[in-house]
């Protein structure tokens, strides 16, 4: 049922390679966070990192066979969306909660 040692070898290799790849992509996105010329650039890059971390959580759930981490990824998606909206409001108005 879950991804454990009974899986074929190519599935484990694919999951491991995808985890490494998405981790490297997060590091590459942080280049735009640091160097981005404007604030919306940084927000967009952080949003991309948040979505990548959601993918990492699902891949980790696949690797370990623990379905709990799918729920963790859902919570991370919610937090990323709220952070994006909060920063977008903050950039315009200078305050989020009046």
């Amino acid at each position, binding site marked *: 049922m879950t991804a454990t040692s009974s899986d074929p070898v190519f599935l484990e290799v694919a999951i491991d390679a995808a985890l490494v790849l998405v981790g490297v992509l997060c590091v590459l996105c942080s280049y735009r966070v640091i160097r981005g010329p*404007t604030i919306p650039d940084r927000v*967009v890059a952080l949003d991309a990192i948040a979505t990548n971390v959601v993918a990492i959580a699902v891949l980790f759930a696949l690797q370990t066979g623990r379905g709990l981490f799918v729920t963790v990824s859902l919570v991370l998606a919610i937090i990323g969306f709220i952070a994006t909206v909060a920063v977008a409001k903050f950039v315009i108005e200078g305050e989020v909660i009046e």
Partner: protein
Amino acid sequence: MVVRAAVITALIVVGSFFLTVGTIGLLRLPNVYNRMHATSKPTTLGTAAIFLAGFVSFGPGSEGLTALIGIIFLLLTVPTGAHMIARSAERIGVPFLGSVTWPDESAVRDATRDAEERSTPASEMETDSDSDSKSETDDHRNE
């Protein structure tokens, strides 16, 4: 279950490809709006593919349904967030590239006036529709 493992592997490969495309677009494109266009759509597709891999792996039990809910949530929230960042970028004055312009005020005003004329008789709309809708859009712009 070799077939299920093959499907999961294919979905993971597709998702990794789309995530890579989104990151390359984020690094290479010249403008905030272009970068946003490059990240939001491929990143959503890639993460949705990986969520689908989770659904195939865990089956239609509780965790698989959570993965489907995650796909729906991503499809709802990522365009909303990108829209809000684009609007705030335009408000704080990030310039557009080349001949790109913000959607024209007069076009929006004409569209709303046409809709009003279609729903109400044209004779009584002649006098006040112009000034009202114009001041409305001006207020919205200066907000």
